[in-house]
């Protein structure tokens, strides 16, 4: 099954996705990279309070991402 690109906010909780790109300024992108969130990383959306924040599982850690943040993260469904 192949899916197109979509922002993280639109991913249904429980789905595993691959991070394709982060469409944001340099500082923010660096910050996310430091926290283990970068291109090619597999992540899973655990909770999503649309239109609010979501919780993702990435490499053994769970992160809370605000809505604005999640909107800027483009992912691809498996």
């Amino acid at each position: 099954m192949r899916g197109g690109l979509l922002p993280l906010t639109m991913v249904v909780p429980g789905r595993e996705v691959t991070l394709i790109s982060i469409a944001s300024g340099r500082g923010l992108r660096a910050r996310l990279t430091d926290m283990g969130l970068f291109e090619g990383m597999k992540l899973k959306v655990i909770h999503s309070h649309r239109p609010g924040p979501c919780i993702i599982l990435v490499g053994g850690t769970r992160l809370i991402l605000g809505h604005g943040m999640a909107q800027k993260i483009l992912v691809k469904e498996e």
Partner: protein
Amino acid sequence: MSKKLTIALAGNPNSGKTTVFNNLTGARQHVGNYPGVTVEKKEGTLRYRDYEINVVDLPGIYSLTAYSIDELVARNFVVEEKPDVVIDIIDSSNLERNLYLATQFMELGVPLVLAFNMYDLAQKQGVNVDKNRLSQLLGCPIVFTVATKKQGMDELLNEAINLAEGETKLKRTTVGYGREIEEEVRKIEEVLLKDRSLMQKYPSRWLAVKSLENDTEVIKEVKENVYSGEILGQVERSAKHLEGIFGDSLEAIIADRRYGFISGACSETVRKTYEVRHTISDKIDKILVNRILGLPIFLGLMWLVFKFTFKLSEPLMGWVEAGQEALGNLFSGMLPEGSALQSLVVDGIIGGVGSVLVFVPIIFLLFLAIAVLEDSGYMARAAFIMDRLMHKIGLHGRSFIPMLLGFGCNLPAIMATRTIEDRRDRLVTILVNPFISCGARLPVYALFIGAFFPQEKAGSVLFSLYLLGMAVAILMAKLFRKYLFKGEASPFVMELPPYRIPTIKGLFIHMWERGVVYLKKAGTIIFFGCILIWFLSNFPWNPRYSKDYDALIQQAQVNEQLVVQLESEKAFEKLEKSYAGKLGRTIAPIFKPLGFGDWKISVGLVGGFVAKEIVVGTLGTLYSVGEADEESESLRQILQEERRPDGNKLYSPLVAYALMVFVLLYMPCVATIAVIKRETNSWKWPFFAAFYTTAIAWIIAFVVYQGGRLVGLGI
């Protein structure tokens, strides 16, 4: 003589760093469960082998990019103080991300020991690490630790000492960035080498890589030097060249290479037999952060916290009160009757400080409840749940944690705003924090609620005050965001720790640490505040009375009732003519429209600038002075009977409520003002905070009182 050694502890938030620190030094300090709780620089010492070791606990950080204050603090410490060894605490169940920080320490060239912490948990999740091989690949010693069970601590210290003594036989390694980048790094290093002063401070390779990463602090540092033009020119050329080759931003590529290096090292040495799943935490989260249930559960928990605090503290308060009374009686018997010294000790010191100490149980219990929320990991969930609401007022979930801490004390709360990266967000969070009702305001509520509201309504009245504080904070945040600090909300990202069952010991340590701050305040600021107020309300010691009381009392010896009445009149007149009486009278008219234009409470409110709980202490002092007979009555009963000059009762439940609203909102205490000054680094904001909060307090108390009268809620 023992040799000295400095060890710095570094690591990601939630890696168990603070627990390691506690194990090593035995120091008692706070272990929160959400990221960024350790912002203060914490130190401790221990003796090990023939060393006297100084351990510094650095803030929890993800990287050394100096993106937030925490990272800058940690980096500056390592660069400037040059600790003998840095121990990087690593969460073994999330090796790759945690090692990212380690690669940056390696680059900085500091002597590094890696503590693979929570190794038992990682093993349970099927992680197996070839320690020897991995430490060769990374070029630094690795120790498996389980900080919660105190395992591996000796080994950690041994490795640190061996490293400091140069006995460790490991070849230093560093991340390779690939041919193209390495070439440019070399070019930049060549230019950098000309600058001696810079080279004394930093390793050239680190500076070169950091400037390619466009690290603002490093660039700033370089700019201050003689060769800055040449260096920055080279950096710019290199960056342009490399971005041309890779077609992506350089930070991304450099970060990518670091992760590549880590996963390369790990793929050879780390075996994962099965996938990591936090099933239990996730199951709990299904309910606690549920879209629909999350918010009501959160509010319910908050309500429980207050209920618990109030109910449980009631009997304890009685005991403290009894002890204080006994002490007062003891001293008044020992000291000369009617002397200034007796008055100072019994009324000023024991009476004033005692009425503050009465509330120690309530404050400790509140801190205990907050510690449960923090240590269990619920606090971070609360941030998640509140994010949507916080977003509406232009802040995000992260600002919510300082707000919650504010319920305990505004000082740690304002300090906790350091983890908020955006300056505007941070200022707004600081400025509205004083509206969050801290523990110090509880004594005032407890006094007035106890006196003017029936027992069964106490909880709801108290809760309504807390809600009002939050509502005002939210409203002001919204206004500030709209007019004072315009701009979009900054992005919100935060780590969610797994749920943990708090340990009894941990909870009590945390409760104690925060409670002690309150006790210290009672011991110092409040102590002197009470003495000052005692002085103001007792001097001039012999004012010019309207009647010759002493002579009249002499004459009335036989009529006991008359004597009591005369003595009471004398005491009241004395108080009226004291400095405090004059001061109170001067400012009382300001409070008249709010329903409590009484000079005694006015003096109390002035004292509240020193610390909010002084309001109670002052009333205690003022009223015990006003009492002619030594039979100590509880302050609550006196307040209930207090009358205006026209004979009507001064306090009705409505007046009491307006007063509590005013106390809730008006000028933050001196300590809070001082912290705001420190955190914003200017006098502008503390002054602004003091002024605008008082204005708002007056307006809202006015609306409450006059509005209440209009709808007929009391006279």
